[in-house]
């Protein structure tokens, strides 16, 4: 049974990775998961300098999902390179580094710092507000997305994967902008903006008022967008959004994802990543599928 997949020229031993921000840099999950057994570990978004993130509460539970407004707290690229990359390498994990920033320059700085690091892919989170454009996210404007993709691609030593925001009218327009800017692959979807009110205290649950919705509740949106993007452009896709089981992963792959990331499911079950992988294998056995690549984008 072949589980190996190739994405943007990089070979991964299987299609299961972690969704950025839900798995730290892997260390916290080591008691539950052999990191080297995953296709890759995708790390929490990292910026050029440390970010404090948002005030608390940062987490709200919703029906079949959750909201987070962590606000991309991160230790900055220096500490990340000194500590997290060597640790992941020591554990024999393939590494996808998720990058965030407030300006194009922030992103480029991180990407350049990573040039000589043993990193397999750079996943670029463009759901961050573009401080120079009044706070609308890079990923919500095709021109801004094209520009930032181009700027990052020009400096990146590793293949880049633009991670799209689902909070847009037409996801294919964004995919095409990233493709035109030179992205090597796409990740989708990031979280959907939501809000929860504590009606007993008449307060927002999240200090930030709004947060990003994730979890199985959003899976139908992920499947739809992955399918649309897969039909509209030729870049390979890392799919995420609500994957809880191997069957969910298969669904995203059939829609067009080459790899699948497990996010919120980790909070429900720290062994979710390996169980998703086991579920994929069980599905392949049941239907006598020799090579996982057969099902990618088969719809």
């Amino acid at each position, binding site marked *: 049974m072949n589980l190996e997949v190739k994405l943007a020229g990089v070979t991964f031993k299987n299609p299961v990775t972690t969704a950025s921000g839900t798995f730290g840099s892997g260390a*916290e999950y080591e008691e539950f998961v052999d990191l080297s057994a995953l296709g890759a570990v995708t790390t929490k978004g990292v910026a050029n300098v440390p*970010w404090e993130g948002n005030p608390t509460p940062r*987490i709200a539970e919703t029906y079949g999902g959750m909201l987070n407004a962590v606000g991309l*707290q991160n*230790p900055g690229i220096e500490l990340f390179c000194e500590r997290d990359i060597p640790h992941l390498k020591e554990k024999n994990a393939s590494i996808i580094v998720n990058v965030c920033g407030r300006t194009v320059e922030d992103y480029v700085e991180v990407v350049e710092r990573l040039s000589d690091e043993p990193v397999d892919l750079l996943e670029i989170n463009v759901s961050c507000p573009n401080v120079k454009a009044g706070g609308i996210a890079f990923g919500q404007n095709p021109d801004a997305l094209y520009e930032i993709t181009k700027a990052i691609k020009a400096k990146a030593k590793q293949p880049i994967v633009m991670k799209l925001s689902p909070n847009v009218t037409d996801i294919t327009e964004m995919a095409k902008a990233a493709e035109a800017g030179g992205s090597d692959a796409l990740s989708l979807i990031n979280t959907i903006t939501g809000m929860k009110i504590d009606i007993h205290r008449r307060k927002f649950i999240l200090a930030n008022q709004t947060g990003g919705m994730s979890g199985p509740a959003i899976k139908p949106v992920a499947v739809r967008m992955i399918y649309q993007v897969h039909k509209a452009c030729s870049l390979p896709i890392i799919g995420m959004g609500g994957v809880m089981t191997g069957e969910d992963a298969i669904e995203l792959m059939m829609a067009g994802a080459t790899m699948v990331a497990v996010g919120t499911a980790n909070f*429900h079950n*720290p062994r979710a990543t390996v169980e998703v992988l086991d579920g994929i294998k069980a599905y392949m056995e049941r239907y006598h599928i020799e090579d996982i690549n057969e099902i990618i984008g088969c719809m």
Partner: protein
Amino acid sequence: MVKERAVIVSQKCIGTDIYDMVLSFPRGAKEAKPGQFIAMYCEDGTKLLPRPISICGIDAEKGTLRVVYRIAGEGTRLFSEMKEGDSLEVLGPLGNGFTMKEEKAIIVGGGIGIPPMLELDKQLSCEKTVVLGYRDELFLKDEFESYADVVVATEDGSCGTKGTVIDAIKEAGVDGKVIYACGPMPMLKALAEYAEAHDMEAQISLEERMACGIGACLGCICKTKKKDHHTNVNNQRICKDGPVFDAKEVVFS
């Protein structure tokens, strides 16, 4: 730290909306320390996040952990409806727990922050006084009394000092070198100031909404004075670096 299906050994209601549950969770019970907590998962798939609940009692031999919780919403309500023999997923023990010192202790619990102090009371072998703050209805008080002297404060004055735990400490002239405390934020803040003023150490146990419970999601931070090793900013993770912090390190908002 393990995740396992834990079977409910017993559950009883011990106050208005307050439940006392004993879980068979052998591997977790072996490791557990006072001040740590467990993450309890709802069987209902609409609620994916675990509920953090402090460990109130540890019986390593029997392989059980005891929790005492209040119905605060849907998840705890579901727990309260479970019966002996039912089972649920549990992750734990989590967090750092209290650092037990030899110096004279003041053990303070307020409201639903009282349960985690019981196992500490039991295990602390030095000289100690327990101070419990209730709104009105008492619970667990008798059990604390089997390990130490107990001073009580109630908001309505129906038992002990009318007022806060600080009022009770002053009124009863409780003293010590180390305060261990869990309870509402205003109480913890007042204790932090009291400890500072009286040159005492204060170990306080904090709460925050959590997703992972194990330090990965950065959902549950508290502002701290020092930069911490993990996040490189002035935040620490309550689930992993806490829930117990040296009050001097915490920035109260």
